């Protein structure tokens, strides 16, 4: 039935002419692990560590047991930020996390205890555990419908000398700050 084809053609033409298809960013989809990994990568870009730890030759990204990030996390092994490679350390026990720049704490772990051990060190703690930033964690990943967003505990970040760029703060769903 060529009429259908002709109709379709005309429809597409009209659409293209009216510019209806131009402009906005679209919504795509991805696996949970891949989305979380991409967030971790972006966070690294928008965070400055105090001089004492920023001179190291790589960003040390650590995860606890059960990080559930699968193969996805390994895509970061080949990446670098400002010519600095990313070193990935997985399944790291609590006491060995103190040399990391960023720690991803799995929802299944005892986040409060881990954060408590690290809370005086310039380490960006991240978790998808509910209420994470209320437990002195720095960045919480939170589900918003079927998307993922994040919350930032700016007070905690400031207290250990970690600088989070305004760009990131602006996009956070919630920023915990006494100022």
């Amino acid at each position, binding site marked *: *039935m060529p009429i*259908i*084809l002709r*109709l*379709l053609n005309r*429809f*597409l033409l009209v*659409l293209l002419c009216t510019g*209806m*298809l*131009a*402009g*906005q*960013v*679209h*919504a*795509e*989809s*991805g*696996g*949970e*692990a*891949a*989305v979380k*990994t*991409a*967030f971790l*990568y*972006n966070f690294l870009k*928008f965070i400055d560590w105090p001089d004492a730890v920023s001179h190291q030759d790589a960003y040390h990204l650590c995860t606890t047991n*059960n990080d*559930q990030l*699968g*193969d*996805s*996390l*390994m*895509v*970061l*092994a*080949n*990446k670098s930020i400002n010519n600095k490679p990313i070193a990935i350390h*997985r399944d790291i026990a609590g006491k060995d996390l103190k040399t990391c720049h960023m720690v991803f704490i*799995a*929802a*299944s772990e005892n986040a409060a205890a881990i954060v408590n051990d690290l809370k005086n060190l310039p380490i960006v703690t991240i978790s998808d*555990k*509910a*209420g994470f930033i209320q437990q002195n964690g720095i960045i919480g990943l939170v*589900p918003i*419908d*079927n*998307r*993922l*967003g994040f919350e930032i505990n700016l007070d905690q970040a400031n207290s250990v000398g970690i600088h989070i760029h305004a*760009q*990131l703060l602006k*996009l956070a769903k919630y920023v915990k700050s006494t100022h």
Partner: protein
Amino acid sequence: MLRLILIGILLVLNSFVAASNSSAEDLTDLSIEELLNVEVISASRLGQKPNQAPSSLSVLTASDIRTFGWRTLAEALNAMRGLYTSNDRNYSYLGVRGIMHPNDYNSRVLIMIDGQRMNENLYDGGYIGQEFMLDMELVERIEFIPGSGSSIYGANAFFGLINIVTKKGQAINGAQIAGEYGTFDTYKGRASYGKKFDNGTDVLFSASHYGSAGDENLYFKEFDDPATNNGIAHDMDTERADRIFGRIQYEEFTLMGGFVDRYKRIPTASFGTIFNDSETYTNDRQFFGNLKYNKALSAKTSLQLKGFYQGYDYTGRYPYFDETRIVNHDEASGRWWGGEAQVTSTVFDRHRLILGLEYQYDQRQRLLNHDINPYTFYLDSHSNGHRVELYAQDDIQILDDLIFSAGLRFDYHHMLKKLQLNPRVGLIWNPLDSTTFKLLYSSSFRAPNVWERDYFSFVNTPNPDNYEERIKSYEGVVEWQSTNGLKLTADVFYNDMTKLLEQTIDPGLGAAGPFINSGHLRAIGTDLEIEQRWNNGRMFKASYTYSRVTNEAENSNSAQASPQNIFKLHYAEPLFNNFAKLGIENVFVDQRLTPQNGSADAYYQLNLNLTSDQIAPGLDVSVGAYNLFDSHYQMLGGTGPNDITQNILRMNGREFRIKLQLTFD
């Protein structure tokens, strides 16, 4: 020819030295703004980026289901590219790219819930109407892959496979009650509870009841005679369904189960029953339960183990007249269980390897038929046996922009004398971030089910010698995606189906005798789709499918139930500053040849659905108008009095539905 291509590809392959390049999904190119808009999908068995998968995947999401107000899985599938549905006022049937085989309860399409096969072990039926296991509100995604699936999937993936991904409890996040009311005294109530707890445990429980009085008076001209109530079936379209579903996910373990019980009165006087006799009905009950264990063995290797137990029970009551009114009782009962182990690994550079072993024991496959009063026995057949499936697939990154996918599947099936070996190859080329080309070939089989093998009735004869049907599918796909979210897909396909199981059709009587491997169909065609989604929730999608199906066995240029053109247009628009959302659905299905050599007219259907979750906190309201132009569009009837006398069946006219859903924290 294929062999030459394969050899060529292997030669090319050998000449490349592997370099490290993981094929895991990579979204790091996206900015934070973009990431905030990425829809997080549950890891399914498909588990890779669609544009790298060796298949042509289409997807519907929970938000689409809400926007367009699809009431059943059949209605949602009818919205997907290349699919169309039919209904004989007893069951719903699915057509794929111009092929819908009469006498088939969707046995040639694999229907899965979270990767678990739902096709039962008697008719191989995959149910999509009210007889389907899940409420649509529990569905997070519907994935459809046309063609003979992939080497990972089992034997029913003949015309295609459908995977229903269920929502996590987190998506419900609280207690939810929902009620709906619609035309023909149709109502439904549902209570659900879903939550993700601090220790990571995610739970979801849901139960629902559906009831519909149906059209009070259905007219069938074939029965327009004073002896048969002038062709009016009164109160004969009644339907009821009860459902329970639950899932608990804790760390690497997922325990899941569901049950559906559905009753449908049959108004069509099928199988020679007495017209307008209210005891004519079918009752389908199905359940499943499975326990899954997902473990990352290392950063590059993951393991999935699964055990399952499933069952299906059907009873049908068919009153007929033989000097006096006699009620025939038809029954089928199946139980099956098994397990599966699957390893996915990227330890070898530039390879993504999947290995799997699946086992199913068909513990019970019983078919029973007798008259109730006076008791006359006709059939009590029992079968059981093993199925073993072994598969391997390797997606090899030959070049940074070129993937060669090779799969092999090996099946032992107790209904078949021969072992089955089926290859699948695909070439996936991403010359640009925006553009993907795919070339795919696969073959598959379908074993006769016990109904086709053993069933015996007035018109059916068992055939212990029937054997597997075969399909070869060839497909070429181009996908293009602009940076602002415009997506274009073009597909060409060629399917060659041989040794299809057919019954002889006696003119004037209908299908009769044994199922023999006599059918041969060829389908050639194309699928085109354009889709755009905006951040504000606006969405536009149009698809067109052309298919030309020829019946090679009968040297005929046309095949039954095959519409040459299908056109769909979906448009959603947020209204009043996101206060509400309007979904507009347009479906055009071309005319179809009926089994009695007539024709069901082409039809166009317009459905509107308006939703709002802004009226009160936790309240979600939806108002739908289905088939707005009130057309009693035509679906296929049967082959004759042996199954369904009517050549075509007219569907319901305009219907309305209002739905309220309340969620508490």
